């Protein structure tokens, strides 16, 4: 059969699909179906809700973090001071760190957005909150008066010392040239343990509070938050975006999005997020425009699942 003939045959069949149906009909009651569906799905929904409920794992606070893992908190605060945390080196939309963005060749969407949510980790996450205390540590003046190089040297030296200390405990750190960093991080730890840091980071001298960006980034820079997520199988390499805490099903419809993060080349790609986002966009567009795409639109003709769906019709023809 020639291609032209195939096309003509398909046009004829589509013509039949295009015009009003002139064949036999069966009775159909739209409102009755709606009512039955409401009852059936209602029973199903209420039943599942009553039996399985929904998870509600309490949120982590800076207070709970500081009390549960003080060494991790101090190490993270030190990294924020020294500008070596993940947030400090993130790039847009938080800061201008060079070469930090995810790109594909010349395509740099992350930089295109610009620094819309500026975060200076040392000032916004450590120094600023300490200045809100009734009695800020006097060592703040040493930090403010020091050069950038001096600050960086202090923070780097203290960070290294924490890594080498027994249990990474600040109490076990060897003597060194750390400047005001130990006092500042210890003061922030105390502030966090008392619960004051949560409010200060979220509200920033304001009464109302809608934005948790800084607190979330600070939590994520530490190891404690990620360890809790790993225990709940929520991290990216655990298909995390489609999981929920406990055994409740999560966003299972994100399975394909999560899948790409499990396989090469995405696993080891430094721009994995951008690659996966663009790939999913492409696949979504392809599925949306499938009626226009030869091959993809013909698969239902080649694999006759429709024979099962309309088996009653084919039996009667």
């Amino acid at each position, binding site marked *: 059969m020639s291609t032209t003939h195939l096309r003509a045959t398909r046009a004829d*069949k589509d013509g039949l699909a295009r015009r009003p149906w002139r064949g036999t009909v069966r*009775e159909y009651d739209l409102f009755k179906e709606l009512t039955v569906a409401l009852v059936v799905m209602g029973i199903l929904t209420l039943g599942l809700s009553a039996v399985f409920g929904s998870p509600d794992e*309490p949120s982590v606070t800076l207070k709970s973090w500081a009390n549960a893992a003080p060494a991790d908190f101090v190490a993270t605060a030190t990294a924020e001071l020294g500008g070596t945390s993940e947030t400090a080196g993130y790039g847009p939309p938080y800061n201008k760190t060079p070469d930090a963005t995810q790109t594909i060749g010349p395509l740099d969407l992350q930089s295109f957005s610009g620094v819309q*949510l500026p975060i200076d980790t040392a000032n916004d996450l450590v120094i600023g909150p300490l200045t809100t205390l009734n009695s800020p540590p006097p060592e703040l003046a040493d930090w403010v008066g020091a050069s950038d190089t001096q600050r960086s040297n202090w923070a780097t030296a203290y960070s290294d010392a924490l890594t080498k200390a027994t249990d990474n405990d600040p109490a076990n750190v060897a003597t060194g040239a750390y400047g005001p960093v130990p006092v500042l991080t210890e003061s922030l730890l105390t502030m966090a343990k008392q619960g004051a840091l949560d409010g200060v980071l979220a509200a920033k001298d304001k009464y109302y509070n*809608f934005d948790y960006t800084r607190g979330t980034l600070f939590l994520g820079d530490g190891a404690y938050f990620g360890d809790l997520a790993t225990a709940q199988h929520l991290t990216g390499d655990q298909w995390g975006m489609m999981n929920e805490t406990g055994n409740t099903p999560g966003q299972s419809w994100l399975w394909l999005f999560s899948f790409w993060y499990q396989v090469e080349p995405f696993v080891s790609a430094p721009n994995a997020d951008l690659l996966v986002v663009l790939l999913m966009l492409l696949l979504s567009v392809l599925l949306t425009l499938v009626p*226009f795409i030869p091959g993809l639109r013909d698969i239902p003709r080649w694999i006759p699942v429709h024979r099962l769906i309309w088996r009653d019709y084919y039996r009667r023809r």
Partner: protein
Amino acid sequence: MTLRENPPRESVPAHGTHGTTGTTGTTGTTGTHGTTGSTPEEADYHTWTGKARGWLLKRLPADKLLPEDQPSYVASWIYVFGMGAIVSLVFILASGAILGLNGPAWYHVSDLGHFVNSVHLWSVELFFMTTVVHLWGKYWMAAWRGGRTLTWITGMAAFLVSIVTAFTGYLLQTNFDSQWIAFEGKDALNAAGIGAWFNVANLGQIFMFHIILLPLAVGAVVALHVVLVRMHGVVPPLEADESDAQLQSGARHDSDAQHASGEAGR
């Protein structure tokens, strides 16, 4: 299953008459339209409103909007999943409205609130289950045939917008899961350059997206999708042919009906 001949239809209102009962095929004479011409195409509408009414009635007459019968091939369990998705959406909107009216912290401290939150969660799970089965069912039917391309596209749009809506719902849980999703989810959004305007750690922004903007978008797209389904009808089987028995009998009847309708129109 009981099949019967396709009844005569007056799918467009004739001058001086309107109303057709699909099961009996009787035509009533119950009112006037205040226009001239025997069909909306022929009618002499004078105003934008009248022209809009004519346009709408031509494309979606009452017996298409609220049918009492369907083509005989509409006989499979696959057809119930679209209705299942719509009904799940009703439960989502109802439970979501209760949660929204009580604020995002309510369900943490109230047993009733926690149950309503569970209903919201499970209706979303059922919505996506039924939607996905509906979507793949329609794919294997090649349901975009015969001028139904926009129906397919709006269905896909409803699915994709629903995914974004559900994502913002997971961010609104105000518990550990939402904290982690906000932290991890930001990377993909920032890499795409939209993280500042769709800031997953900004509860106020996400709240607005989830309870107003995205539900309006889902509602609008789903409504358009359903209207298009009613306008175009259910797609006939692949390989359906004019020589099929189910078309032959109806075709004969249809020609009789056209003749009868023509008589009545005069």
